């Protein structure tokens, strides 16, 4: 019997997807779909009111995630998902805003926005799918491309130095930073769950195979081979010093939860400070001590 014939049974994730837009555009063997499932699982387990969860994406392959999840979702301009999410969250502090975007958007063109949102400890969860290139536009070199890797605009190999994303996030002031590969399904789910429950700026980097571009240009096999490779090369080191987390080309990947600290969010700081200075004149915005919403 086909799944559609059993009316009471369907893939549980379909409640969270815009089924009128499935199948999606991602390549066979691309890890983004897997990250979306891990995210959906985290949403379910967190028992958040799904009316109050909003997803903001930028442009790119990962940027298409907003179009497939059945939540209030926004497909914005390249690199600008984080300031959009900032405005959305500040306008309606009850929302839980998740930024789902790729390494090119968030750390390339959007790098400035990332560090400032982290600095302010804006209450956002940023899920960054890192496939080491600008995939949607054809596999160009990105700020995360490892040295010596091949990309369409580094046809002789990349000689630039990449970012170490957890290091950058930590330095900028993020209060929750974790890195996993796409195969660490349940750990990604757990990290997203923890980040959703925690007020403040969270970054979860998920290293994902890019089959058609990064893997093909560097002859790294298909999606399965690269997924396997990343997982096998990964070593869990919770709490590792973020200075030691650089990724070399096809090298060891250190994964885990690196940063988990407490700090008042932007709104908490605003409310606390202005209440102190202005006393009764101040109109409280949102809720004081926004913890856990």
């Amino acid at each position, binding site marked *: 019997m086909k799944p559609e014939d059993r009316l009471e049974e369907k893939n549980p994730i379909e409640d969270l997807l*815009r089924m*009128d*837009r499935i199948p999606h555009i991602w390549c066979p063997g691309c890890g983004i779909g897997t990250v979306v499932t891990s995210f959906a699982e985290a949403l379910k387990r967190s028992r958040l009111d*799904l*009316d*109050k969860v*909003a997803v*903001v994406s930028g442009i790119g392959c990962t940027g298409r995630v*907003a*179009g497939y999840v*059945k*939540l*209030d*979702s*926004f*497909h*914005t*301009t390249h690199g*600008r998902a984080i*300031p*959009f*999410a*900032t*405005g*959305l*969250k*500040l*306008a*309606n502090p*009850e*929302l839980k805003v998740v930024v789902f975007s790729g390494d090119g958007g968030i750390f390339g063109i959007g790098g*400035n*926005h990332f560090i*400032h949102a982290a600095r302010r400890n804006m209450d956002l969860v940023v899920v960054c799918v890192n496939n080491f290139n600008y995939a949607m536009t054809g596999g160009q070199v990105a700020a995360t491309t490892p040295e010596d890797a091949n990309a369409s605009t580094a046809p002789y190999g990349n000689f630039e130095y990449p970012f170490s994303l957890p290091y950058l996030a930590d330095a900028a002031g993020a209060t929750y930073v974790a890195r996993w590969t796409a195969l660490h399904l349940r750990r990604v789910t757990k990290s997203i769950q923890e980040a959703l429950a925690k007020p403040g700026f969270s970054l979860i980097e998920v290293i994902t195979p890019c089959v058609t571009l990064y893997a093909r240009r560097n002859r790294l096999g298909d999606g399965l081979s690269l997924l396997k490779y990343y997982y096998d090369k990964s070593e869990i080191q919770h709490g590792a010093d973020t200075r030691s987390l650089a990724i070399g080309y096809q090298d060891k990947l250190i994964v885990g939860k690196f940063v988990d600290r407490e700090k008042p969010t*932007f709104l908490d700081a*605003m409310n606390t400070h*202005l209440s102190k200075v*202005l006393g009764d*004149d*101040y*109109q*409280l*915005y949102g809720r004081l001590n926004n913890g856990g919403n």
Partner: protein
Amino acid sequence: MKRVKADPKGVLTGAHFLDGDFAIAEGALAAGCRFFAGYPITPSTETAERFSERIPSVGGVFIQMEDEIASITALIGATWGGQKVMTVTSGPGFSLMMENIGLACMTETPLVIANVQRGGPSTGLPTLTGQQDIMQARWGSHGDYEIIALSPDSPQECFDLTIEAFNLAETYRVPTFVMTDECVGHMHEKVVIPSPEEIEVVERKWYTGPKDKYLPYKLDDDGIPHMVKAGDGYHFHITGLTHDEKGYPVINADAQDTCVRHLVGKIKNNAEKIIRIEEDETDGAEVVVISYGITSRVAIRAVQQARKLGIHVGNLRLITIWPFCEKRIRELAGKVKAFVVPEINFGQIVLEVERCTAGASRVIGVPHCGGWVHNPADILTAIKEAVK
């Protein structure tokens, strides 16, 4: 459109001595703006500073973002979070905002941007006046779209037209610009702020139907779709890609045609309702002077002097710059000997006047590259030239 009385919390009723920048901030607060994301840039910074001082007691958020791109993007996010929003900037910041002004147009997001213009191009004259971004307001972003732009000539109008800008933005779900300049922005004059009951504010066109039937871009009878905000359970999707009624991307020529015709049509077809101009003795005039903003105040002196010389000069002030008052210019064209168009730029609105006149009358521009206002004598010379 649902009109309500202004929220008293934001209205600083009374007679004040304010500069244009401050008046813009007060206008925004009176109109119900409770979110401001901006970046400092001379000569607009005072608006941001005023807003940051006032908003804690009114209730809302002021955030200084890391750049103008972040500012305009945060505004769009905040609008979809349910707030009325504004920012203020000048030439260089305006240029940075262009991509996301396009996003606001494409997603039909109401917001207000005030541009306190200064001499350009590039860093130009940060502390001195200009009117050089007029065409940029209309054409600055890529693609086809239409916007609304207003031009105040005094701090009082800065207050009034900012409120009107919010109302127009909500009515037509379009970014609306308040194109003022350094002179008006930094000039101090009496600004009378009425009581909240006397201020009419347009409420956002909220959707009230069943949740499962909501289509983000389905046109209503007035040609404008209903809006919702995130958090109310509609689970809608908004994208900058060409989209259909559901808000989903549709990448083909037919969808593009429908999409763009709507974005352009909603302003073009309502132009007569939107446009406001002020005319003085234009009927039967030999020459009509067309100006806007601070130049219109200088033009008054030239017009008075010309009338003393016996020339029948009409004075036409643009309060709404975009959409441009094509119909009125076409009516006057052929009936007047010439139009004289002074502006503090090398010739921008004069091109529109030339286009609409289509050769039926002479069009004499009085350009000024910026830094100061015109000398009335230059405008008078042009008027005298026009009647030869």
